[in-house]
């Protein structure tokens, strides 16, 4: 390569960098120098079209997030099923397998902590939540927190359940296709109980938070856990 070619490349690179900086200044200046527009009364059709557009976008976002969470739930269940089918020599070995799996699965999360030996009792307490009742033999396998949302996964010998707490302003949806759904009450607050293929879901709320409890437990056990939940 000739010296002249190298010089041209260096010059181009320098010029590119200067143009990048200058382009930012130009974009800023052009924005600053635009005249202030007059207030306009838009037509009803236009306002309705914009409302529809934003509503559509909200729904898209809603389903995108839903897909993300449902994929994670599906992977979690699949993993539990697969690992349950593997003959391992000790409970501790099984626990290590589960732990390793959670580490890989949750690496995109901001805060991951594992229960380890802390969940052997019949209750669970953390800064965010107290579960005053945990069925016998269940242990915390995973705690996942992001912002105001907390998710706790418990595993028993045969069954599992997942408890989630999120801000009341967040929207929570459950897939009720082919499921039996009924209204119930948890500590005087309205709740929805859904059951489908041996997976049961209970959703309820208080003034600040909404709660979801899902798993393979009996309805009476799910309700008991929910009724003994304290902030």
């Amino acid at each position, binding site marked *: 390569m000739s010296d002249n070619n190298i010089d041209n490349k260096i010059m181009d690179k320098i010029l590119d960098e200067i143009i990048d900086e200058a382009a930012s200044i130009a974009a800023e200046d052009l*924005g600053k120098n635009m005249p202030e527009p007059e207030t306009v009364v838009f037509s009803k059709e236009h306002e309705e079209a914009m409302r529809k557009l934003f509503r559509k976008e909200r729904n898209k976002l809603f389903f995108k997030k839903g897909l993300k969470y449902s994929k994670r739930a599906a992977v979690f269940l699949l993993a539990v099923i697969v690992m349950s089918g593997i003959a391992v020599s000790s409970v501790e070995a099984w626990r290590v397998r589960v732990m390793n799996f959670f580490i890989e699965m949750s690496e995109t999360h901001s805060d991951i902590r594992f229960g380890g030996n802390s969940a052997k009792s019949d209750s669970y307490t953390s800064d965010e939540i107290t579960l005053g009742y945990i069925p016998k033999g269940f242990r915390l396998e995973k705690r996942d927190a992001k912002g105001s949302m907390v998710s706790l996964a418990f595993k028993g010998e045969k069954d599992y359940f997942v408890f989630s707490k999120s801000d009341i302003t967040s929207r929570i949806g459950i897939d009720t296709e082919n499921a039996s759904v009924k209204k119930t009450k948890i500590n005087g607050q309205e709740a929805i109980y859904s059951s489908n293929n041996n997976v049961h879901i209970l959703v309820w709320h208080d003034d600040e938070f909404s709660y979801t409890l899902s798993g393979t437990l009996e309805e009476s056990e799910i309700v008991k856990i929910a009724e003994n939940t304290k902030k």
Partner: protein
Amino acid sequence: MLLLQIENPDNRLKAERLYEKYRYLMYSEAYKILHDERLAEDAVQQSFIKIINNLHKIDENNCPRTRNFMVIICVNVAKSMCKKRLYLNKRDDLTDDMDAAEITDTGNDPLDILVDKDSVKQIARAIEALNPIYRDVLLLKRAYGYGPKEIAGLLEIPEETVKKRLARARKALSRVLEKEGII
């Protein structure tokens, strides 16, 4: 199977916040081109369909830059609507050809470049003075970080045209800078 769907209110509202903030400006710029109230409203709507797909690169906190971005999108949508309705003459295409004919390669010597704050400001002025056809693609790439494919989608022009305009913008800018004695 459990399907848990959680929506972040902040993300949800970004497009709406941008609309509230810039709708009058966008409408006014579109109206200057279309001279029709309904068409100007349509231009605002179509702009937002594009903007919604590129929300992640829009900085709400930088008002002048974002203001300029919203106007670039809306003005180009309005122009595109004009073209489609045969309101616009072939000026844009002719300008493309004329500028292409005028642009000549510059034999630059890197040692002659003097990079200081004043030079950068002079280059910024030169960018502002470029024909908007070139200025818009140049700013979308250099100031807002969009790639040719994304720009093509935003401005409703083929990707090849974006690349052509970027190359010509770069050459036109080099020529202006040479004339100004910056390089």
